[in-house]
């Protein structure tokens, strides 16, 4: 019985921590987002310019030079929307885990000098990346509404997908945040690993182009499910594939709970190492 209670507690713990400290997390996210632009002349417009510039670059390279065609009608315009739709969750994920990995080390003064729930440090960077994603998402939705099929009712499922995306990112973020305190090499490996991961995720190419014998690589990749689900609900106006969603839900929740468990077990040693 006690074991079950303990298990249940560690299941609830990560949700609890986010709820209990929501004001602090919110303050951190606000400051983080303002901090990105507070010193720049163009301010918040960078939030729009940056994803647009990336989108133009990728579209130029993959669609115009490499002549990869996919999307509804195989035009460059639809390719751009397709690409952008897959890019958005990936960029939020990549930013969230990359910054999580370094956030504890960066905020060492807080860890060493203030009584402070350190769980919220990775949480705020992951959430901040997610908030930034909304800017890109707004651009995407405008684009889809004007130049594509328009916006369908399946959009109501997008928040569900994004919750799974958050849970998964958060779990990985907590795990890496803690690991990198003890093993600074994690930060080095991470950049390489994420690049590899990005190209194994069908963002720049349709999943169908993946050779059949490597198809299993896709199914092991939670971010593939996320990207697919984004395209389904935003572009194709259809339900995401239910079994995939179930797998994603399970993997995301497991990542969230395990990541937090790992973080909580190791966080007391941070101050001894930093």
């Amino acid at each position: 019985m006690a074991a079950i209670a303990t298990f249940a507690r560690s299941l609830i713990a990560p949700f609890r921590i986010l709820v209990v400290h929501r004001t602090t997390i919110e303050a951190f996210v606000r400051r983080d987002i303002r901090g990105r632009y507070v010193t720049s002349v163009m301010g918040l417009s960078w939030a729009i310019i940056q994803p647009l510039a990336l989108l133009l670059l990728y579209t130029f390279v993959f669609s115009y030079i490499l002549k990869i065609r996919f999307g509804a009608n195989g035009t460059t315009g639809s390719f751009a929307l397709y690409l952008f739709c897959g890019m958005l969750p990936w960029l939020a994920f990549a930013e969230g885990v990359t910054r999580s990995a370094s956030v504890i080390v960066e905020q060492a003064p807080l860890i060493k000098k203030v009584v402070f729930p350190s769980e919220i440090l990775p949480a705020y960077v992951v959430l901040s990346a997610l908030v930034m994603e909304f800017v890109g998402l707004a651009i995407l939705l405008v684009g889809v509404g004007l130049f594509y099929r328009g916006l369908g009712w399946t959009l109501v499922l997008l928040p569900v997908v994004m919750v799974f995306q958050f849970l998964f990112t958060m779990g990985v973020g907590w795990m890496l945040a803690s690991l990198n305190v003890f093993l600074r090499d994690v930060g080095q490996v991470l950049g390489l690993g994420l690049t590899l991961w990005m190209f194994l995720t069908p963002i720049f190419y349709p999943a169908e182009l993946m050779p059949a014998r490597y198809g299993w690589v896709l199914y092991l990749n939670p971010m593939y499910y996320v990207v697919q689900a984004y395209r389904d609900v935003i572009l194709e106006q259809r339900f995401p594939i239910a079994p995939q969603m179930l797998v994603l839900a399970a993997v995301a929740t497991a990542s969230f709970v395990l990541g937090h468990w790992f973080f909580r077990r190791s966080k007391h040693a941070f101050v001894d190492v930093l």
Partner: protein
Amino acid sequence: MSGVAVDVEAVSKAYRIYAHPRHRLLEALWRGRRQYHREFWALRNITFQIRPGSTLGIIGMNGSGKSTLLQVIAGIVQPTDGRVTAHGRIASLLELGAGFNPEFTGRENVVMQGTIMGFPPEETRARVPAIEAFAEIGDFIDQPVKTYSSGMFVRLAFAAAIHVDPDVLLVDEALAVGDAIFQHRCIRRIRELQDQGKTIVFVSHDIGTVKALCSEVLFIDAGEVRGIGDPSDVANLYHAHIAGLETKRAELTEPVLSIPVTPTSSVFRANPTFDQRVGLFRHGTGAARIRDVELLDEQLRPLAAADFNQEIVLRVHVEFYQDAPTCILGYFVRDKTGTNVIGTNTYEENTAIPPRKSGETVVVDFRYRLPLMPGTYSVTTALAYNRYSATYFDWIDNALVFEVLPPPDGRIIHSKVWLPLQITTHA
């Protein structure tokens, strides 16, 4: 509240020292079956309790473990052994401006710091006017913190940190910042918190501040408690400890002088550690020698640090090795810069020392007040042959180093010396 605000039970803290970062990984992989670290015990078996509403000072030299102890009490560092139980809300002031972001305004940072410490933003926002007034930074409150002078930064950070409303406040040497007026105001604020019944733990190596503020003092050395209790008693212990260390250092560097000790009166005493300690600072013919210099209170009890304007006795023990028909004993009290602040001699004060024969001794007491600006002072003593020549039996600089503590009523001494005066106003 119960009878204990903070209960520290048999707390020990070991740090693992690894020769190389990869050893940490290897050890984790071996899951304890192989050891790659050596241990450093920062704290050993520390037990004490803090009563609610009391102020505990923790003193110790650099590296003695006092900051680690504070981190353990705060809950930032987990003890390796033992347990800390705190009742009520703890706020720690271990580093000023930890978590300040230089790009943001003072106001934003203050609110953020409050949030980090776990206070709701509305609560902190309501305190901003008081913080602003305390820090005296005026319109700069709405400027980015990076435009602040270091003094302004520290004032704001301190103001923000001290205007929280905890049950237990932990302060780590943060008071040693800002100009004298700001420090004075900080001390007032701490007294206010004391009056409100807050429990305060205060770490410093400045014995003066600790003595002035604390109801109890804990002296920690090499991770162990060496004394806890009444501030004066523990302060004396601390001073004795430092003096002991100085003697040890002197032993390492100086050949030991061997002058036979010949007690001839009950008051006279020759202190062998004194000879060792002042070896570097003395000159003179050696036909007579100063064998000890003591700082005593008005009842002739040894004194480690003097209160402002306290009546003290400077007692000088002299032993003669040749006949001396005349001699003059004098002293200077010098400040840190070496300026002679006060001083006189037996000739100027018309107190002749009777002729002394070889082997005899004399003990001279100078009784006076110390109306001096709080700080560290040294005593120079000299025994001259007569008033006409500049030859000395013995001249010792730094014969004694002592401290003058701030006035307990909190008044500021603006000048090096304060003299009693009478003020009359004519309307």
